Each structure stands twice: as structure tokens, then as C-alpha cells.
């Protein structure tokens, strides 16, 4: 009895254990496949059945202050051929012509060329090549590698060409998408915008480079299963491998219309005077925003190679020069701020002045001793007179003021290759001549934008605003970065106002008073004619002539600063004055500035 009952029990137990073990094995395997290795296996199966497709993340636009698009991303196309398929097509045609499709055909080069020619002849004019060139691309690729499946026929062609290529319906020719960049306004702001490398979109210069973090998009990737015959995606099989992300929109403070006008006027004058290059800057006094920054010769970012490599940057930021007499306004402001002089303090300005430290100062043209006030020194632009006022401050005091004007350092713009300018080291390192030369803008270098910023400070009652070229970056999600807008006081309001009044006298009484006259407005301006270092420790024969000023002087709104380098046909600041006059007139007109009321206060220049 016991044996018979025990046997089934044992069998049951044995089979139960077996069952449990078996199920356990299955469960383990199941978990292994479904959980542990799930993602790897899924990926493997996806890879086997689907094709990943690249999704381009568009590079952001660059727009001006009014939203005019200055740099735009557009889709362009690369025309690609498959040399292998092209050859196969010829082989098939030859085989079917001979009526023997089973035999393998060995093409001679001549046969191949002859076979390719009809299609190539259709394709060539569309992509702007000759038939021989198209055939040559295919045959040379095949010579390298008989299985070659990829060769570029044309890069970056536009939509019209794309449609034309598609219409040819050549099986072994297909276009590939390739985003590109266009600059609808051409050279307007070209030197600021910079440009990108044509074939791969790498930013190479200007704001394209400096603000790449804002502008650059991230390419994504999706994959999906598709039907075998017509590549229609099967519903529900799309997998986003990587989300594509568009770049942000970069908004500038520049006004494209004004920028066009300034560039036009400046280039006209550069050509008329035979100058090497010129820059003009328009800045808003109360905010420090740059409304126009013109650099000529100008690069058209659609075609940067048409411009010399040296002319493709923005010299406003990258070319330091000795500012010359425009700097006297800064020295005068320092002296007034320290309370060491008033606009009517009197000195005698000789032609030659030998300070006690052994320096040797002279004015640009011979004159008898002149009895000038500080205002008169600025009007006459007397180096000796300026030296007599400048020496009332210590070198260290003047140097500290220059630092407060943010000279000798990059502006907040941070343009690629922006120069800091050079204050000739520390005042302790200045030699005796430099100690005096720095009072009238020699022996130190500044960039054009630094001078514009210094005049902005004087115009704004002594408060320097951060220089702004970029208004902000708006991401596709709508987040916007705001630039800093906090000003800092550099000189007292009284000193700034007095300097402004003296500069008004320069405008009204200086030798260019007729050239730069703007009826209806009070203007403050100062010319500069500076020697330009030749790079070998000496000075070049030509001058860098400049005008900086602001208007309306009773309530300053705009700074205009013009520099023209080596105008061989007119080597004085008379070359830059008309540009200043035209640009300032246009700015005042454009922004509907209210004309000045009371006339400028009169300050005697002599005594």
C-alpha cells in the first residue's frame, strides 16, 4: 500500500520541481530579454529594420532692433550621385541592348563615358558644370573605388536648382538637405555679423562667432520603420533618438536702415579721399546702445571671399590707434573733475613747450604765443596748452580716470578679437615724453568704440553706460537674456557739463565750423588728427583723422564718432567732418529729435 501511494507522490513532486525549475529558467530568460537587455535588443532590432534620419536644428536668426532679419537660415541642397549606381544603370542598358541579360558585361572606359554622357548632359547645365566635369567626377570616383556610392556634384544649391534636378528623374542623382545661411541685407552690418563657413556652417567671424552659443541649433535624429517600396513611415514606429533644437534669435541694438546710410556715406567718403579704411559709430547717449557701427571696406557676408581678409572684421573694435586730439576732451574732463581748472582758466600756449622734466612738446603748425583759456585750448587744439593744463594732475590721477573711462580694456561687447587698447603700461613706466603725449592722445592707443564710449560718458553727465551691441538672445522657448544696463559715474556732472559746453564752442568756432554745421541743433564735437604707428616703432606718413561729438548738446541723445585712416587725398580731419555732419543730421532726423532752443552759452577762448 505505502509503496503504491508513495510513488505517485514522488512523481508529482519530481514533476512539480521540474516544472518550477523549467518555469524558473523561462522567467529568468524572460526577465533577461525583456528587462535586462531590453534596450540593447530593441536598438538592435530598430537598427536592423529602420533608418535613422537626421533632423536639422536651425541656426537662429540675427535681427536688428526693429526685427529686420540680418542673418537668416535657409535650406540649401547638396547634389549627390552614386557612381556605383550610375555604372550599374549603364551596364543594364548595354546588357539589354545586346539582348543577353545573363552574361556579365565588362565596360570599357569609353563605353562607360558614352553611357553616362546623355544623363550627364542633362544634369550638367542645371548644376552649372560642363558635361565632361560631371562624367569626370563619376569616373574618377569609380577609378578610386569601383563600389563608390557617394560623390558630390554640387554643394549648397538653391531650391530652384533642387526642383530642376528632381525633375530630371535620374535614379542615381539625389539631393541632400543642407542648411545654409543668407544675409538678406548683404553688406549692411556685414562686418558686425561676420559669416559662417559655406560648406559646414562653422561660424568664422563677428557675432556669428561671438554669439554662437545663442545661435547654434542642435541637430537631432529620428528613426522609423518604413514600407519597403515607397518609404512611407509605418504609424507608431517613429522613435526620436535625439530631439533637434533650434538656435535662439539674436537681437541687436543696430538699426539696419541707419546702418545702411552710415555705411554708404562712409564708403563714399573713403573712396573720395583715397583712405585705407574708415569706421563710424553711432551710440545712444542715455543707454550706451550702438545704433550703427560701420566699417569700410565692408564685407558682404554672402560672399566674404570678395573682400580682403584684413577687411572682414570690425575695426571699430579690433583696430587700436592713437586717438590724437579727440582725447583732449577726456584730459580736460579729468582736469575739471579734479577741480584743478575751470573752462575759463587762462594760460599762454607757445608753439614749443619744454616742461621741466625734459619733454619736448610742439603744436602742429607754428604760431606766436597765444593767450588761451581751457576752452580756447580745445578750440585751437593746442598740444602745448593742453600740456599746461594736464600737468596740473599727477600721471596717476589721469591714468586712474582713463581706467574709469574703461580705456585699456575690452568693452562689454566682447567682439571677436576685440582689442583693449594700450595705455602704455602703468604711469610708472611712462617716459617723460609719454607723460605729456598721453594728455593729447598720443603714446597710448584706444579703439574707436572706446572713444565713442568716452564721449557718451561726457554727454551723459559723467555716467558711463555699458556699451551694448546685443539687445538679447531669445531661445525658441521664449526665454530672453537681458544685457546689463547699469551705468557708473566716471566724472562729476559739473565736469561733464562744462566739458560739453567747451566742446560746443569747438563745434561753433573751430576751423571746420562751416563743414559740419547742422542747422537747428546744438552740437558738441572735437576733431583729431593722429599719427598712425607703422608697426615698426615709427610713424607712417599718413594720418588717422577723426571727429567725435554728440547732439543735441543741451540734452544729448546721440554720439557719432568717425575715424578715417590715411585719407591720402585730404590728410586732415576735414575728411571726416562731412561724414560726421551727414550721419548726425540723419540720426537727428530719423529719431525725430526736437531741435535745440536756447543758443549755446558763450565761453571766451582768449584773454
Amino acid at each position, binding site marked *: 500500500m505505502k509503496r503504491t501511494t508513495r510513488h505517485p507522490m514522488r512523481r508529482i513532486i519530481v514533476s512539480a520541481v521540474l516544472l518550477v525549475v523549467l518555469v524558473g529558467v523561462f522567467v529568468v530568460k524572460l526577465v533577461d530579454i525583456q528587462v535586462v537587455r531590453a534596450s540593447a535588443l530593441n536598438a538592435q532590432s530598430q537598427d536592423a529594420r529602420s533608418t535613422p534620419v537626421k533632423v536639422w536644428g536651425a541656426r537662429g536668426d540675427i535681427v536688428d532692433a526693429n526685427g529686420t532679419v540680418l542673418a537668416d537660415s535657409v535650406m540649401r541642397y547638396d547634389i549627390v550621385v552614386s557612381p556605383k549606381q550610375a555604372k550599374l544603370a549603364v551596364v543594364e542598358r548595354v546588357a539589354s541592348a545586346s539582348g543577353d541579360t545573363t552574361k556579365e558585361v565588362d565596360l570599357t572606359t569609353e563605353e562607360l563615358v558614352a553611357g553616362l554622357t546623355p544623363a550627364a548632359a542633362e544634369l550638367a547645365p542645371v548644376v552649372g558644370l560642363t558635361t565632361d566635369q560631371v562624367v569626370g567626377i563619376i569616373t574618377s570616383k569609380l577609378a578610386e573605388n569601383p563600389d563608390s556610392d557617394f560623390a558630390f556634384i554640387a554643394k549648397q544649391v538653391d*531650391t530652384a536648382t533642387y526642383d530642376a534636378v528632381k525633375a530630371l528623374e535620374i535614379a542615381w542623382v539625389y539631393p541632400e538637405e543642407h542648411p545654409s545661411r543668407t544675409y538678406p541685407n548683404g553688406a*549692411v552690418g556685414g562686418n558686425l555679423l561676420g559669416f559662417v563657413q559655406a560648406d559646414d556652417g562653422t561660424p568664422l567671424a563677428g557675432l556669428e562667432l561671438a554669439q554662437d552659443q545663442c545661435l547654434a541649433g542642435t541637430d537631432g535624429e529620428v528613426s522609423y520603420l518604413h514600407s519597403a517600396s515607397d518609404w512611407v*513611415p509605418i504609424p507608431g514606429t517613429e522613435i526620436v533618438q535625439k530631439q533637434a533644437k533650434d538656435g535662439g534669435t539674436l537681437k541687436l541694438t543696430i538699426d539696419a*536702415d541707419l546702418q545702411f546710410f552710415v555705411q*554708404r556715406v562712409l564708403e563714399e567718403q573713403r*573712396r573720395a579721399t583715397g583712405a585705407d579704411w574708415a569706421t563710424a559709430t553711432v551710440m545712444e547717449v542715455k543707454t550706451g546702445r550702438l545704433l550703427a557701427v560701420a566699417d569700410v571696406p*565692408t564685407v*558682404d557676408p554672402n560672399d566674404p571671399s*570678395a573682400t580682403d581678409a584684413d577687411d572682414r572684421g570690425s575695426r571699430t573694435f579690433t583696430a587700436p590707434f592713437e586717438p590724437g586730439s579727440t582725447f583732449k576732451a577726456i584730459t580736460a574732463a579729468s582736469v575739471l573733475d579734479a577741480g584743478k581748472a575751470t573752462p575759463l582758466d587762462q594760460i599762454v600756449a607757445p608753439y614749443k613747450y619744454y616742461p621741466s622734466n625734459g619733454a619736448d612738446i610742439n603744436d602742429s603748425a607754428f604760431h606766436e604765443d597765444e593767450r588761451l583759456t581751457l576752452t580756447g585750448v580745445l578750440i585751437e587744439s593746442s598740444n602745448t596748452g593742453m600740456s599746461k593744463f594736464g600737468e596740473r594732475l599727477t600721471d596717476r590721477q589721469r591714468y586712474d580716470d582713463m581706467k574709469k573711462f574703461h580705456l585699456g580694456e575690452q568693452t562689454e561687447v566682447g567682439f571677436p578679437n576685440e582689442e583693449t587698447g594700450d595705455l602704455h603700461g602703468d604711469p610708472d613706466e611712462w617716459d617723460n615724453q609719454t607723460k605729456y603725449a598721453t594728455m593729447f592722445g598720443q603714446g597710448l592707443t584706444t579703439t574707436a568704440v572706446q572713444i565713442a564710449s568716452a564721449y557718451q560718458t561726457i554727454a551723459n553727465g559723467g555716467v558711463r553706460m555699458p556699451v551694448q551691441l546685443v539687445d538679447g538672445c531669445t531661445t525658441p522657448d521664449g526665454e530672453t537674456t537681458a544685457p546689463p544696463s547699469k551705468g557708473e559715474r566716471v566724472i562729476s556732472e559739473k565736469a561733464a557739463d562744462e566739458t560739453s559746453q567747451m566742446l560746443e564752442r569747438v563745434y561753433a568756432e573751430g576751423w571746420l565750423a562751416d563743414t559740419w554745421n547742422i*542747422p537747428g541743433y546744438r552740437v558738441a564735437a572735437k576733431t583729431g588728427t593722429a599719427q598712425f604707428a607703422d608697426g615698426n616703432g615709427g610713424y607712417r606718413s599718413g594720418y588717422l583723422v577723426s571727429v567725435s561729438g554728440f547732439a543735441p548738446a543741451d540734452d544729448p541723445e546721440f554720439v557719432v564718432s568717425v575715424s578715417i585712416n590715411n585719407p591720402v587725398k585730404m590728410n586732415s580731419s576735414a575728411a571726416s567732418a562731412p561724414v560726421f555732419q551727414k550721419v548726425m543730421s540723419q540720426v537727428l532726423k530719423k529719431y525725430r529729435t526736437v531741435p535745440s532752443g536756447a543758443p549755446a552759452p558763450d565761453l571766451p577762448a582768449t584773454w
Partner: protein
Amino acid sequence: MSALPANVLPAESKPAPRRAPERGRWLRPAPEPGRRAKPTLAYAIIAVAGVAAIVVAQLLLSIAITQGAYDIDHAQMQQTKLDRQEQQLREDLDRVESPQYLAANAEALGMVPNASPVLLKLSDGSVSGDPTPARAGAEASGPLVPNALIDGVPLVTEEPAGETPKKQAKGGGERAAAGAAGAAGSGGAQTPEDPAAPPVSDGLPTPATH
């Protein structure tokens, strides 16, 4: 007396014959399964039919979805094509909107910029500036601020009457269909201006002044 036992007896004998019929009654329901078989078949048919319906519905649904996929694909292709067209037209528009093109057209029409503005102050009626006519013969702006994009785009004055520069801007007329679609597209955007824009052959547009 006798009646009582007689009564009792049948009473005593009753249980025996009653048990027999009781057993018979217990077994009697046996045929019932035959009657129940009928609804089971109906259920089976319903179930099978239901499954079949579900299968067919799913098939139809997936056919519909697949058809939808083709529709979507078709629509997407069309969208891509229209996007391309839109981009092409926008590029044309950008080209003719550029300041260089406007300036070149203005110059072609004989316009020159006036560099000496004159201001009339309403508060006291004073005029500042000398009213001088703009001088002709200013240098053409084209080469001063180049724009590679407008090379070869004809100016207003070079166009046949009645054409808008946009259509002509980029070697148009390659594709009749696209051209027609483009004209329709741009026409929509331009509607407010179109009736007001006079044909160039009739001379310069005259602004309405108030």
C-alpha cells in the same frame, strides 16, 4: 380498531414505494443537459462571431491607420514642397526688401538723398537750415554697400509694365505650377497693397496727402 391498524399499515408500507419513485425523480433531470446544449452553441457562435468582428474591426482600423499614414505622408510631402516654395518666395521678398535694392530703384527713378534737412519749428514758426535742393549726381549706392543677393535682379525701371519685382526677382517662370501657386500665395499677403499699387508705366506713384 381495525381501521387504525389499517391506516397504520398503509402508512407503514408507504415509505417503501415512495422511496422507489423518489429515486426515480432524482434521476429524472438527467435529460436536461440535452436542453442546455442549445444556448451553449449560440454562445459559441456569438463568441466566435465577436472574435471575428474584433479581428475584422482591427483589420479595418489598421487599414484605416495605414491609409492615414499614406495620407499623412502625402500631406507631409506637400507641406515640404510648399515649405520649399514659401522659403523661395521669402528669399525673393527679402532680396527686394533689402535697402540696396530699394536704393538702387530709387536712384533708377532719379531720386537722390537730400543731405541738408530743413526744420520748421511749429512753436515759433522759425525755420532752421537753408532749404537747398538735393544735388543730383551723387555716387550710385550699389557698389558702396554691396549685396551679392541682388546681383542680376532687375530694377523696377527695367521691368515690363504690370509686373511686380517679386515675381521677376529670381529668374522666375521656370515652373508654371509653382509660379501660379506662388502668385496666389504672394497675392494673399499683398492684397491690401495690390489695388493701390499703380503700374510703373503710368509714372511714379503719387502718395495721397492729407
